[in-house]
């Protein structure tokens, strides 16, 4: 049998403290699971092939909980904006931001304030042919638009924040929902605040003066 000399583990000096799974020092008596929260993260990225694959691959590889991901062009044709809704603990959200920022074609990343303007679009197809007035009433209640109406189905669009979309979908259930397509959240910071800085891009250079008043 092989081994080394030295005091047995039971004879050794022991530390007093303890850490939790996130590596924070904690009171061993009062360890609690970290609470998660839902938040919106916006990233400006180079408009080049593979960026979306890099970002989505990052989320699966690092086991981040992602609720929604949208991507689209911006005012600068060289840049795209990715908007993410994630549900994570505070350290998890910090890691999401840092890991995103580390991807080379990602130019800037920012977590938006809770008052950020968030919108999503849903297209709903319901079995409303027999009661078009009722479908119309629900559509108007959610300031939606009827896109298509036939003898058996009515297709409407609703735009709003996540809560409104969820409420609208619940309201349409009475007719029987055939299919749903949702876009996921797009978001911008409220007022004069910037959603994500674009250091280095042309738009940034032009808008540099505005940053001075930011934060």
């Amino acid at each position, binding site marked *: 049998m092989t081994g080394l000399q030295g005091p047995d583990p039971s004879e050794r000096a022991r530390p007093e403290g*303890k850490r939790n799974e996130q590596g924070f020092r904690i009171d061993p008596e009062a360890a609690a699971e970290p609470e998660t929260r839902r938040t919106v993260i916006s990233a400006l990225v180079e408009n080049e092939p593979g960026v979306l694959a890099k970002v989505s691959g990052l989320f699966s590889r690092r086991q981040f909980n992602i609720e929604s991901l949208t991507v689209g062009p911006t005012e600068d044709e060289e840049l795209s904006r990715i908007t993410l809704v994630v549900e994570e603990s505070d350290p998890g959200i910090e890691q999401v931001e840092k890991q995103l920022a580390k991807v080379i074609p990602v130019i800037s990343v920012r977590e938006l304030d809770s008052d950020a303007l968030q919108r999503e679009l849903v297209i709903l197809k319901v079995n409303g042919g027999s009661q078009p007035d009722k479908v119309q009433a629900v559509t108007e209640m959610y300031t939606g638009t009827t896109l298509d109406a036939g003898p058996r189905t009515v297709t409407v669009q609703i735009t709003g924040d996540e809560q409104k979309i969820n409420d609208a979908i619940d309201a349409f259930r009475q007719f029987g929902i055939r299919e749903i397509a949702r876009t996921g959240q797009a978001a911008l910071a409220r007022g004069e605040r910037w959603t994500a800085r674009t250091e280095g891009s042309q738009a940034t250079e032009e808008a540099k003066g505005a940053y001075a008043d930011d934060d």
Partner: protein
Amino acid sequence: MSGDGATPVSPNTETDRGDDAQEHEHEEADRTEVQTGATAVIRALENAGVRYAFGVQGGAIMPVYDALYDSAIDHITMAHEQGAVHAATAYGTVTGDPGVCMATSGPGATNLVTGIADANMDSEPLLALTGQVPTDFVGNDAFQETDTVGVTRPITKANYFASSPDSVGFDVSEAFGLAKMGRQGPTLVDLPKDVSQGETDSEPGGPTTPTTYNPAEEADQAAVERAAERFAQAERPVILAGGGVMKAEACEQLYEFATEFEVPVVTTMPAIGAFPEDHELSLEWAGMHGTGYANMAITMTDCMLAVGTRFDDRLTGGIDTFAPDADIIHADIDPAEISKNVHADYPLVGDAKAVFEQFHAAMPQAPAADEWLEQVAQWKAEYPMDYEMDEDGPIKPQFVVEVVDAATADDTIVTTGVGQHQMWASQYWTYTQPRTWVSSHGLGTMGYGLPAAIGARIAAEDDQQVVCFDGDGSFLMTCQELSVAVREDLDITVFVLNNAAIGMVRQWQDAFYEQRRMASEYPWMPAFDKLAEAFGARGFRIEEQDEVEETVQAALDYEGPSIVDVFIDPEENVYPMVPSGGDNGLFALSEEQL
């Protein structure tokens, strides 16, 4: 992986190598004239100061090899692409500059994957160039087509699909620049054959990085001052030096800091050699098989200065019991590493060299830690790294490592595979100089040792001895690269610590799987000394204790590649040991304590 057998293949350029160092000076006149995408690629490498490339020919990469024909860059043809990427990675470890490896599309590229993942885990600078089918064929499942950019996306720092002969040279310059700058790592450029062959006169310059890539140099000064204030108050201070210290060339700054303020130094495995292990402040390295005194120190410390480490789980053990009384000062060039695994009470984002200089200047006084230093000295006495070898018993592997260490110069480079032999080579060799320990850490890639020895040998010129400790299982995975060492007449000595098993698995089976030795015993091993002779290398065999010193010396004296098949005690295990996810302070000294 030759695909286009009909096209003539460039002869190997090895005849250019080695005679005169002057040949390697890249005078302007020697530079490749840019006429095609492939020549732009080679020109970008030349402009970056690249002198060697490791690779294997094949159909889609042939235009790039053809451009190498006229270049002063020496190409080392390897037996397998995995050998090429490991050799290039080790070249990067020893020189600090990105090693370059080349492979064709499809199987050539996928054979690089293990090595790229290895370099990614250990933040080693590496540039991989892969051939690709012509752009028009991409997506059609053409012969030897693989989505190389897709496959390597999660294991590269950045990768590129070259889209035009006019831009491909710049892609290579940026890939080289990113591999070296900031947190180092592997990058890859995928080169479709039409892009390599297409005409261009667009000349790349030296290595570049994107304008949006700006890693911090110095850390925030106010944050450094707060952290230094805390460290100076520490009663039980310790420095944890990670691989980033070596990569930032900050070993001197580490030494100055530790010795001036009398702080014990623990390293991670990749940082072995960053601080001289024969210094009284050295506790060697911590973690699963680290020294007892290093693990006691990082467990009992009240303030840890951790620089250039990512707090790998093999270092921390269970996070809940890692340095639980300590304020953690964590300096790293990659902000994503701060508070990833262990919460940093004092985060510092910056280059290790700059941070050590700032921190040194900001220290108000040395910590008052006399009692702690006595305690640390006591642990060193209590937990010696030692072994017993019966006079008429089997050879202990630790003894072999010590004999080779004693028979070689201090600056000898040691490469290893992965397994028990790797642990003994790291524990029982005294490393005193940076970049002399070359191994696979984060990925734990068996088979790393021999190709790494080839890369290290090339990198070290003729200045340093290169030895490799390998296991029988590990060696068998890449032993075909011995043909390269013979062809290139490389002076390396490989010690196969042969226990007829993948011993680390066997050790775990004995400890945790009721000795059910499923697929871990290798009584079917070839005679490695005879295998060496078949390749044209020198083979040695050691079966008895009294043969060790003499045969080791004979193998070291042989100028050229040699293999020493050493029959070690097959029951010898690696200790100390912290079980996976365990408490570092409760490291086991024997199997009964697990």
